[in-house]
């Protein structure tokens, strides 16, 4: 093959050339959009991270100052801790809840479509509307959560007003928005061949054995997929906090992107905000790559 292509370079025919042109033309929205709105901004962001720029005076090169400042900045470190805490607790529980709901919805019960629609509904509620509602769900005096907890004799808690309860409150709220993961799991459960279960039943495997020996191993690729997406999203969560607590109380819900947003759009530290964004970017991408390596030990792919 190599020898052939070395000795004889075939001029593409007219039809081929026309197909090439058509390919580039039809793909051009993506190619141009990628260059202008993704590739260039990323390169620009590296440049920004080495400059100080308040949008008023011209940008000034300051070397690694933004990065040095970033590692010393207690708020920046706290914001990473907050996002890490949120991700660490929210993601595993979200996966368990959505998986269990998906399992339940593949059993032979009535109104499955209704349940599925109901569990998915929170995803389509505008995030800003969800935030203002949940802000009030958590209200210590008039909120619906304390009212319901009161039925079980639990004293009212001041969720969003106590630093030690604010992050758990956001984690609790995130369990409300697991519809997408659940639907993915339902689709995956439907693709497990029935013959596997039949064979296992003939061998006398009980329901639990079938769950742990067939269902869960067959679902590991989707569990992994949902986990990666959930981690990437959780590390970047901040809009509910922006609306509901504005990062408070005592910065307990100052999540990483909220800190970057403030540095950029409230304090106009464009360079510093870019450096912070790169720090978070490296953390997220690093986490993702690490997960891919770890996944080789537990994710089971057919063939």
């Amino acid at each position, binding site marked *: 093959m190599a020898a052939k292509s070395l000795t004889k370079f075939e001029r593409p025919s007219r039809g081929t050339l026309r197909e090439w042109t058509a390919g580039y033309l039809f793909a051009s929205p993506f190619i141009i959009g990628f260059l202008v709105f993704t590739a260039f901004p990323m390169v620009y962001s590296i440049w*920004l991270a080495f400059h100080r720029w308040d949008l008023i005076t011209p940008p000034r090169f300051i070397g690694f100052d933004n990065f040095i400042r970033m590692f010393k900045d207690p708020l920046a470190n706290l914001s990473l801790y907050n996002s890490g805490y949120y991700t660490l607790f929210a993601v595993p529980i979200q996966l368990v809840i959505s998986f269990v709901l998906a399992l339940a919805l593949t059993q032979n019960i009535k109104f499955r479509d209704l349940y599925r629609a109901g569990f998915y509904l929170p995803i389509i509620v505008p995030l800003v509307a969800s935030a203002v509602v949940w802000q009030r769900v958590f209200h210590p005096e008039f909120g619906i959560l304390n009212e319901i907890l009161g039925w079980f004799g639990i004293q009212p808690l001041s969720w969003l007003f106590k630093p030690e309860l604010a992050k758990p409150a956001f984690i609790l709220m995130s369990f409300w928005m697991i519809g997408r993961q659940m639907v993915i799991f339902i689709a995956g459960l439907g693709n497990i061949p029935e013959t596997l279960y039949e064979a296992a039943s003939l061998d006398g495997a009980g329901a639990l054995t079938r769950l742990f020996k067939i269902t869960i191993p067959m679902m590991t690729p989707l569990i992994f997929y949902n986990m990666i997406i959930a981690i990437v999203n959780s590390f970047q969560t901040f809009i509910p906090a922006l609306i509901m607590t504005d990062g408070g109380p005592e910065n307990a819900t100052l999540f990483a992107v909220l800190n970057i947003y403030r540095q950029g759009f409230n304090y106009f530290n464009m360079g510093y905000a870019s450096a912070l964004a790169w720090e978070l970017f490296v953390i997220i991408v690093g986490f993702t790559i690490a997960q891919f390596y770890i996944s080789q030990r537990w994710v089971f792919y057919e063939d």
Partner: protein
Amino acid sequence: MATRSPAISSVRSVTRQPLISPVWSRRIGLILLQILMTVILISFLVPTLWMISSSLKVSREVFAHPIVWIPESPQWRNYLKIFEVLPFGKFAWNTVVVTGLAVLGTVVSSLTVGYAFSRLRWPGRRFFFALMIATMMLPEVITLIPRFLVFRWLGWIDTFLPLIVPYWAGASALYIFLVHQFFRGLPMELEEAALIDGANRVQILTQILIPLSKPVIATVAVFALIQHYNSFLEPLIYLNGMDKWTLALGIRAINDSNVQNWELVFAAGTLMLAPVLALFIVAQRYFVQGIAMTGFGGR
């Protein structure tokens, strides 16, 4: 212990002839599961139902103990009041314009780019396709600041352009991927025959492929519609003047300015939810299809 041993032995003795037949124990299990799922369903719906119900309350009922679930006389006036507090009519119109143009751009660019990736051969196709997949995984935070500066340099701040133009330029890799997957499933003979008949590529796309692709177009349109209608961060960053605001910004504003009037905030939230809820009910199968096909969707 001694008192319990007969009980245990009696349980053992019935294993051959169980008190409850397996069929019945399975049936009882399913009934319990049904009850449990109903309880969970209600807990998932409660925040939304509470918002809708409270949007029709008088202030006294909003802050009543125990909670008033159904307002005594529905206060439809609350919905009129929010239009007096803030120009929600203007916000709604802006939302329609931005969402409409962004969705249109998403659909058009997903179709053309998806066509190029799935049915045309050109050098670099695999490279750009891999690049597109990579942008789906890219943490968005990295472009937050520099993209703003690009739009600022273009003079697009406080216009709708940053909310629309990127979506005409294939910013939604996910939807391109979806169209690509769908087009790949259609037989190549379709366009070979058309090419021999002298049709050009635009004609093949618009007259042969698109008419066959209504389900995937509907899925893309429904997801993109929800995404842009619900979008909060982009309007927040790019739209300053209130005459440019979308509904999402209006809700934040009414939330900040009406600390005492929960019923107005809830009315605004319900008002914004109503169209997407209607769409969800009508087009539910496209949601489910879309998520099953791509694993993403919504927001």
